[in-house]
C-alpha cells in the first residue's frame, strides 16, 4: 500500500517448535499417570485365568445359595424407608450447610480473599474425609441410631455441593445483581434478591444429584453401625446368610436405579424449566435501529391522559392465579414436606442429642489423638495405602478404555445409526444405576477374589459415568471440522480420530482425571468390604476402638486425595 513491498520469504527449513519443556510438563505428567495405571493393573493382578476359574466358584456359590430370601414386607419397607430417610435428611443438611460455604468460596460473593480461602478449605476438607469415618466419630458422640449417619452424610456432602454451587454462583449474570445494588439494597439483600434466585435451580439440581450419590454410598454406613438396608446386608453376609444378603443387595440395586431415574428426571425438569437466556443477546443483536419516523416521541405527547383515570382495585391482582405452574409448585412443596416429615418420623431423631452431644466431644477427640500406627507399623499401612491407590488407578484405566469405546458409540456424531447410539445410551444409564459398593460386595462374596473383584466393580460402575460424560462432550464438539473432513473424503475411522478424538481429547483427559479423583475415595470404601487396601485397616481400627489408628489412616487418605486433587487441578489448568 505505502510503497514498500513485502518480500515473500522462501522457506528453507521447518518452523521451530516452541520451547520444549513448558508444553511437555503436563504431557509427561499424563504419561506418568498412564504408566501408573499400567503398573497398578499388574499390581492388582487382573488375571483372566483366575477370573474364569472364579466363574466356576460363582456357579458353585449360586447353586449352594439357592433362591433369594427377602425379609418380610413390613421389615423390608421399614428398612428401605430408614435408608431413604437418612440419605434425605443428610443430603438436606448438607445442602443447607453448603449455601454459606459456597457464598464464602465463590469469587464474586466472598467478603474477602481470606474468606474465600476459608470457604474453599472447608469444601476440600469435607470432600477428602470419607463419610464412613465421620459416621464412626459421630457414633461415639451420639447415641446409636440414624443420627450419626445423617450427620456424616451431611458434613461430607458439603464438599461436593458447596463446590458445584460456588461454580454456579461464579457463573451468574452480574447485571441483575448490579441493578439490585443500584436500587440501594444492602449487602445481604443484594445476595438474596440478585444472586440467590439465579442459582436456586442449580442448588436444587446439585443437591438432588448428591442424594443419588449418597444413596449408593449409604450401604457402607451400615458397616459402622448406621441402621438401614446396608446394616441388614452386612449382618446377613456376616451370618453367612447369603440368600438374604443377596436379596437385600437386589433391593438396593432397584432402589438406586429408581432414584437415578427420579433424580435425573427432576433435574432435567428443573434446569430445563427456565426459558433459555439466549433470547436476550439474540434480541440485542436482532434489534433493528428504529426508523426515525416511527419513534419520534414528543414532549407534548400524552396530554389526554392528564385527566387521571383512577386505577381499579389492584388487590385482585395480588390473588395469585391457580395456573398449572402454581399447582405443580404446590404439589412439589407438599411432596417435599411429606418426605421430610416421613424421614424425621422414621429416623426417630432425638433432638436432645444435639444439646448433650458437646460434652462427648472432648473425650472423643482425646481418644483420637495422638495418631498412631499401632501394632501394624507405619510400613504396613503405607503398603495398604499403595494397594488402595493401585486399585483406583487400575480401575480408572480400565474405565477409561471401556468408556472411550462405549462413549464414542453413544455419541450422535460417531454412531453410524441412531439405534446404535440409543442402545449404548440406555446401557450407560443402566450401568450408572448400579452402585459400585454393592456390586463390589457381591462380587467379592461370590467370586472370593479380593482386590481384583473390587477393581472390576469400580471399573465397571464408573463406565456409566465416564461413558456418559465422554459421549456428551463428543456431541458438543463443533460439527464444522467434521463436515469439512467428510467433504475432504476422510474415511470413517479418519473422521473419528481427526474430527472427534483430537478435538475432544482435553475433555477426555478432564473427565478421566475426575473419575480417578473419585476412585481413590471409592477404593477406600471398597477396602472396607474386602476389596483390599487401607479400607480394611480403617474398619478394623474403628471396630477395635483404636482411634489413634483411625486418625492416622484418615490423615493418610486425606493427604493422598488432596495431592491427587492438586495434581488434577494443575493438569486441567495447564492443558486448558
Amino acid at each position, binding site marked *: 500500500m505505502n510503497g514498500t513491498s513485502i518480500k515473500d520469504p522462501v522457506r528453507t527449513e521447518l518452523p521451530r517448535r516452541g520451547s520444549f519443556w513448558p508444553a511437555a510438563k503436563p504431557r509427561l505428567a499424563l504419561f506418568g499417570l498412564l504408566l501408573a495405571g499400567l503398573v497398578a493393573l499388574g499390581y492388582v493382578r487382573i488375571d483372566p485365568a483366575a477370573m474364569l476359574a472364579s466363574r466356576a466358584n460363582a456357579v458353585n456359590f449360586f447353586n449352594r445359595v439357592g433362591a433369594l430370601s427377602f425379609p418380610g414386607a413390613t421389615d423390608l419397607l421399614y428398612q428401605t424407608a430408614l435408608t431413604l430417610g437418612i440419605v434425605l435428611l443428610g443430603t438436606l443438611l448438607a445442602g443447607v450447610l453448603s449455601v454459606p460455604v459456597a457464598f464464602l468460596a465463590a469469587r464474586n460473593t466472598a467478603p474477602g480473599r481470606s474468606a474465600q480461602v476459608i470457604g474453599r478449605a472447608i469444601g476440600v476438607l469435607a470432600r477428602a474425609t470419607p463419610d464412613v469415618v465421620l459416621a464412626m466419630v459421630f457414633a461415639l458422640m451420639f447415641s446409636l441410631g440414624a443420627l450419626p449417619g445423617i450427620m456424616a452424610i451431611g458434613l461430607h456432602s458439603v464438599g461436593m455441593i458447596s463446590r458445584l454451587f460456588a461454580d454456579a454462583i461464579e457463573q451468574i449474570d452480574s447485571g*441483575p445483581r448490579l*441493578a439490585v445494588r443500584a436500587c440501594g439494597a444492602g449487602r445481604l439483600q443484594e445476595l438474596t434478591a440478585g444472586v440467590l434466585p*439465579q442459582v436456586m435451580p442449580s442448588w436444587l439440581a446439585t443437591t438432588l444429584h448428591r442424594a443419588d450419590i449418597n444413596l449408593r454410598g449409604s450401604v457402607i454406613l451400615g458397616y459402622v453401625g448406621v441402621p438401614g438396608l446396608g446394616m441388614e446386608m452386612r449382618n446377613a453376609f456376616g451370618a453367612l446368610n447369603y440368600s438374604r444378603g443377596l436379596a437385600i443387595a437386589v433391593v438396593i440395586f432397584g432402589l438406586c436405579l429408581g432414584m437415578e431415574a427420579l433424580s435425573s428426571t427432576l433435574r432435567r425438569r428443573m434446569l430445563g424449566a427456565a426459558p433459555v437466556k439466549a433470547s436476550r443477546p439474540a434480541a440485542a443483536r436482532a*434489534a433493528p435501529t428504529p426508523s426515525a*419516523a*416511527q419513534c419520534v*416521541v414528543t414532549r407534548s405527547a400524552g396530554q389526554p*391522559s392528564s385527566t387521571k383515570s383512577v*386505577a381499579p382495585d389492584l388487590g385482585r*391482582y395480588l390473588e395469585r392465579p391457580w395456573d398449572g405452574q402454581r399447582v405443580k409448585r404446590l404439589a412439589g412443596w407438599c411432596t417435599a414436606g411429606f418426605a421430610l416429615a416421613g424421614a424425621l418420623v422414621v429416623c426417630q431423631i432425638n433432638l436432645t442429642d444435639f444439646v448433650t452431644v458437646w460434652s462427648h466431644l472432648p473425650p472423643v477427640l482425646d481418644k483420637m489423638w495422638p495418631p498412631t500406627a499401632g501394632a501394624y507399623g507405619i510400613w504396613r499401612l503405607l503398603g495398604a495405602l499403595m494397594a488402595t491407590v493401585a486399585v483406583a488407578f487400575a480401575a480408572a484405566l480400565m474405565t477409561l478404555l471401556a468408556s472411550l469405546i462405549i462413549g464414542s458409540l453413544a455419541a450422535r456424531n460417531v454412531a453410524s445409526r441412531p439405534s446404535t447410539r440409543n442402545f449404548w445410551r440406555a446401557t450407560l444409564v443402566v450401568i450408572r444405576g448400579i452402585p459400585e459398593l454393592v456390586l463390589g460386595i457381591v462380587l467379592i462374596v461370590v467370586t472370593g477374589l479380593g482386590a481384583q473383584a473390587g477393581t472390576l466393580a469400580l471399573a465397571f460402575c464408573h463406565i456409566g459415568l465416564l461413558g456418559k460424560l465422554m459421549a456428551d462432550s463428543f456431541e458438543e464438539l463443533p460439527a464444522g471440522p467434521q463436515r469439512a473432513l467428510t467433504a475432504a473424503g476422510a474415511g470413517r475411522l479418519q473422521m473419528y480420530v481427526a474430527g472427534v478424538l483430537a478435538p475432544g481429547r482435553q475433555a477426555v483427559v478432564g473427565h478421566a482425571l475426575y473419575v480417578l479423583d473419585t476412585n481413590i475415595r471409592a477404593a477406600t470404601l471398597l477396602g472396607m468390604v474386602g476389596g483390599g487396601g487401607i479400607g480394611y485397616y480403617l474398619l478394623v481400627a474403628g471396630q477395635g476402638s483404636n482411634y489413634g489408628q483411625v486418625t492416622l489412616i484418615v490423615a493418610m487418605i486425606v493427604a493422598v486425595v488432596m495431592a491427587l486433587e492438586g495434581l488434577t487441578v494443575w493438569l486441567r489448568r495447564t492443558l486448558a
Partner: protein
Amino acid sequence: MDDAVVPAAAPTPGTSGVVRAGAVDVLAGGRGPIGESDVSPAAGPASAVEFTARADQTEIVATPVELRAVTRRFGDTVALDGVDLTVTKGEVVALLGLSGSGKSTMLRQINGLDQPTSGKVITLGQSVDGLNQAGLRRLRSSIGMIFQQFELVGMLTVLENVLTGGLARLRGPRLGTWSYPQAAKLEALDYLWAVGLADRAFQRADTLSGGQSQRVAIARALMQRPSLLLADEPVASLDPESTADVMLLLRQIARDKGLTVLCSLHQVDLAMGWADRLVALRSGRVVLDESAAALNREQVMAVYRPVPSNSAK
C-alpha cells in the same frame, strides 16, 4: 389502527413524529397514570407503616445533578475529560454520543457505581465521593436506574422484581413475594398498573418480551420512589414499537412525578422529540449542551461526524 397516528409537534421542520398504536395506549388507553405512590397505611399490617415512612427523606434540591470538572481515566483511556454539567430539577435530558464517548461512565459517576479520577460529583445535594457504603446505599435508593439489558432477575416473578426496588426501605433479606409487607406489594402493583403489566404480576420475568421487561424495570425504578431517574440506553435492545412505548412512558412519568431524568440515547431523532435538553459527549468532553427546541437536526448530527484531525482520537 391508522387513526392512532398522531402528528407530533416536531421541533424541526421535515421531521414528523409518528406514534405507534401500542405507544398511544400508554397515554389514552386503559392504563391509568402513575398512581399517587402513597399507599394508605391502613392497607397492611404494622410493618407497612414502617415501610411507607421513608427513613431518609432526600431533601429537595434545585440541581439534582452537578458535575464539576469530572475526569475519569481507565489506564490510558480517558473516558470523561473535565465534564461540567448541571441539571435542574424536573429537567428531561438526553445524553448523546457515539459508543465509547463516555455516556455510561458519566451515568455511573452520578449514582456512585464508579468514582471519578478527579473532579466533584454532587448528586441530590450530596457529594458522592464523601459517602461511605451506607450513605451510598441511601443515595442510590433515591435514584432509579434503567439499563439497556433490563437486568431483571429472570427466575423471579414480575411482582418480586418490582418489589426489589423497595428493598432499601426494608430491613433484612427477602426471598419470595410473601416475605414483603402487604403495603409494599400494593405499591408495587400500583406501578405495574402504571406500566400496563398489573395482570402479569405473577408471571416469571424471563418469559416477558423485551418491551415488557423494560416496563417492569421502570416499575422497579419507580418502586424506589426516586427523585432522579438515570437511563442507560433504555431502548437500544428494543424493537421500534417497544421503543416508542418505553420512551413515552418515561416522559409521562417524568411529567407526572416531576422527576429529573438523564437518559443516554443512540437515536438523534428520538432524542430531539423527547428531551427538553440535549447534551452530547465526544471522547469524554461535552461538545453540545442546548435546549432541544433551539437545535436543528443538522447541528446535532454534527456530533456524530468523523472527528476533526486536531482531536486526540
